[in-house]
């Protein structure tokens, strides 16, 4: 029974890894600490390094093929060995309870004595292959763990980000539309624009220096090196860039006080 489980694991591991990488299933078990660690450990500004994600994806694909081939070979070999023993030891199979570590050695001894077609060299070769496969199995297990961890991070990030985005952007937008409040619509639209831009650039690994603080703000995380310039009611008009001035005007027309901590083009518009 144990052998069947082993074979199944060996054969299916790459498929599990692959499916984990692509399905982006939310993992409710991963906590804030994991996310925080990753955000802090990767990238120059302490953010998630999307390059790493891309590399991991590539590794996942190459790992998939290695696992598939390895698994297939393993499965074929195991099936051959198993069917051989099934024909010879069919009756005693269920009674025997051999420890896992001695399984292959004992079987090979029996094979050696019972079947002349399998030479000692073949057995040796098979032993080596089995050893190799065991190593690969170990690697595959580690990879799976890493993918799972990464997946957890991503799913956690996505879940957290989109939950917050829903709470801070989507939901207020719906409310604003329902209320017919132009002020809130303008404010929320600009916030959406700000965060969607940051997220998009982050996802394509072309983030601006201010994108990370922007995302951290949305996810209620502590912001590091937030170098954004604040524009408030005391900022001299001459110190406001034209591309921001137009937004300030748009907000002022609606008597808005600003966009809180959301960063647009490196500027925060607040306390207007």
């Amino acid at each position, binding site marked *: 029974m144990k052998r069947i489980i082993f074979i199944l694991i060996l054969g299916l591991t790459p498929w599990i890894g692959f499916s984990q990488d692509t399905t982006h299933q939310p993992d409710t078990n991963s906590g804030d600490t994991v996310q925080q660690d990753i955000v802090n450990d990767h990238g120059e500004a302490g953010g998630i390094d999307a390059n790493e994600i891309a590399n991991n994806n590539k590794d996942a694909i190459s790992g998939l093929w290695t696992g598939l081939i390895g698994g297939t070979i393993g499965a074929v070999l195991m099936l051959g060995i198993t069917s051989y023993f099934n024909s010879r030891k069919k009756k005693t199979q269920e009674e025997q309870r051999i420890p896992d570590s001695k399984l292959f050695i004992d079987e090979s001894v029996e094979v050696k004595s019972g079947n002349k077609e399998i030479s000692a060299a073949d057995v040796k070769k098979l032993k080596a292959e089995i050893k190799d496969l065991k190593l690969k199995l170990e690697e595959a297990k580690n990879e799976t763990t890493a993918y799972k961890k990464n997946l957890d991070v991503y799913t956690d990030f996505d879940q957290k980000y989109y939950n917050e985005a829903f709470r801070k952007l989507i939901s207020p937008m719906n409310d604003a539309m329902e209320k017919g409040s132009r002020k809130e619509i303008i404010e929320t639209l600009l916030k959406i624009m700000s965060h969607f831009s940051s997220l998009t650039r982050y996802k394509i*690994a072309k983030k601006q*220096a201010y994108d990370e603080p922007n995302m951290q703000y949305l996810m209620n995380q502590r912001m590091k090196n937030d170098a954004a310039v604040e524009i408030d009611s005391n900022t001299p008009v001459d110190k406001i860039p034209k591309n921001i001035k137009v937004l300030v005007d748009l907000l002022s027309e609606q008597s808005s006080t600003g966009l809180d901590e959301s960063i647009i083009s490196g500027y925060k518009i607040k306390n207007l």
Partner: protein
Amino acid sequence: MKFYSIPVIINDRREILLELTESSVTTGNSSYIVEVPSLTSFNLLSILRSSVIKTFVEGSRDLNMAQMDAACSYQNNVVTLRLYERQPEKPKEQKAAEPEKQKEKLSYEDLEDFLPELAPATPENKFTLHEQQEILGNANSHLNLSFESKAMGVYIKSRQIKAIDQQLFDRNKVSLKVVLEVNGENYSNTLDIYLAHPSQFLGIALDFGSESSQMAVKRYSNDFNLLEKKPEIENLFRNIVSFHKSNGWVSQNEIVDFYQEEKNTNFYKSLFFLKEQLSGEYEDIDKEVFIKNIADNLKMLVNTKDGFNTLTEQKFHQLPNLKIIHKHEDLLNGISFEIEKDGYGIPIKMSEIKQKVYNTILKVMITSFLKKEFIRYNNATRFIRLMLLVPNIYDTNDINYIQHQLGNIFRELSESEYQGKILAWEVLTISESDASFIGYINKSNIHVEKDRDYIIIDSGKGTTDFSIIRTGKDSIFDLKPIYRNGFSGAGNMITYALFETLLHYIRETAETKQSSIKFIKDRIVGILTSDDLERKNNFYTELERLKFNYKGINMNDQVRSTWDYAKSGDITFKDLIEYGDGINTLISLLSGIENAADFYHYVDDACNFIAESTVSYLKLIKENKKDFNCAGVILTGRSFMFKPLVDKLKDKLTKDLGVDGSKINLLNSNELKDICIKGVFNNSIRLNAEMTGYPIQLIFADEATQEETKEPKKPLINRKSLFARIFNDLNNFEQAEKVLAFDTNLKFDKLQNSQFLIGSKTYRISGNEIFQKTPGTKYEANVEFTHKGYFVRRMHDGVIDSIAPMRAIDDTDSSDMSLVVPSLFPNYIDEKYLNSLLRDDIKITTVAPPDNNNVSDATPNQSQNPLYF
């Protein structure tokens, strides 16, 4: 008009050419303020015996002062100095004896003896001078006047007859009438000298800089000592603010900062804005010399809060450097102004309005100070001497015009607001680079040699000016201008070169399928030429910082690698066009870079241009002035804070001019700016500030050959280096034979193929008459400066038989613009002059084929930029 020109020295400090006319018409500036020293006697007017009275009367000859007799009278506050040719008795005897000698010697046919007779023996020696000394009478309660005629010169002097105390003089004005009697006709001119009691004297020096302006003032203490005080630097900016407040142009209670303030200095930044639609009642637009309704139309103070944006909204235009655009008004053709009159909008060109603006600014600067002066010294009366520092690119006409307008400003003030307070005024101009030299010799621990040539090179932000000054044989303070010139191209040109380097680098490294040129034009140059002050400022701050942190060519690779690895977020220079946020990302990328270097030789070209141009002009003098004897070179100006330029210039000066490296002095510009403006108050320095220098005759090849050589003059199609194009202009001079045209050195035979380089301008002779000659006659010619401009006089046996005026050649062509535009950077940018965008030899980085493994490839709009704000 017939006149004689006589060099006179006023008060031992200024040498001027006094033009004596038949009708005694006063020309130019005729009022001089003489501050009366408490003890010593002093010269009001001196005419040196060594000088020559130049004639501008056809059929007459120049007169040697040594041959002139002088007589003086004093009546009704007018001193009349008569100069007349003495009828020497001895020479008559000699002349009578000479024919006899000739007769005797004719028979000997001795060539050696014969020749000296053709040239008449030097007559000066034959005159016996009657030394005279005469008391003319009392000029006022404290001073008398005397006349002296001595071997060295003719003098009108004054001496104290009563101790100078706090009691003011009862009379101040003395008119000096100089009359020249020649061939039975009288030529005369009158000067007004105002004898100022020390407590009434006020000296003002104004440096209207292209970047910033400053003012210094000299007074005497008004106590029993009446001592000369040290010149003080005025806070020009504060004065202008106070003036605006007192006129209600700025709210009294408003506490705001202004862009015109240069913190912790007394400078006033030269930043001016003029309204597009000018209001005000202009009777005659052309004749009106000032802008009307200053408060509404001309902004000299702009608050840092919303001033710029408000002005932009109200359609005010910032005026670029008034000095550089001096002759390039066409640059601003895009900006049009209008004066509304009787419901019609009369279009006014920049060239027409520019001078009015300049006059108005000067007026505000002067008035703002005077207002304070008369508030502080409530019942005071003043005799004012104003000295304006002018750039070398100003010619005689410009200087005359400015002097005239300054005179008008004082006249207007003395007739209205300060009637009875401004008693008299004197307006002087002095070249900025000359002032630097005066500042230099005023410095302690400086050794200046007598009778030597000094080269002063002043390279500021927009222009490089240079002068050659000869110190006197007897006194180092007797300064003679040999040459003054200047050109557009200095610090701004180097910053422009760095800007070009940056654009070139972006073009070269960008990995994009889009047009990098379009990106640069729209997203960088577009912003820099817009009214987005904040982003422009941020960008220039980074560019200036990089200029300060410039590394030499040997560090190119290292610096380049820091540029290559510079990041803003995930974005590098490679991604700037494809993924960047326009100029914002560029500014952010630049802020992450520590140094700049000259990857593509733009900076080297700029430094080369400045050094080459300066040295080429100086070489003209060195090679053609036989007694050129350079004792030192003084480098001053903010551009010389850029070491590669200093190195390049030193190298050129050493190699091409043979100047000893140890004689090249680099001065701290900030220190010098102070010394320089204070130095102009030095009364012991005698300087002719009117002349722009000696004319240089440029003899070009015959027309046939000229046609051939003209071809390469056209702008090169290959735009590899715009600076290379500029050098062509200097090469034109190289091709010409050059003669330093003074003391009749001028080559008359080649006059028709000649141009004259005087100061920064090229002139040619106007009219044909002077070229029509009688065959077989030997002519000589020389170029003379007058207040009406330069003239060529043709002489035959010492008699002037033809006089022709010289006209400046209008050489404003497109190649000039390639100099002017970089010099106006960053206030004016024109894509047409951005070499980094024009050249097609930039190796563009090929864009890699789409990477299938790239996640972002999954998006269908991959080639488009992400959202910009």
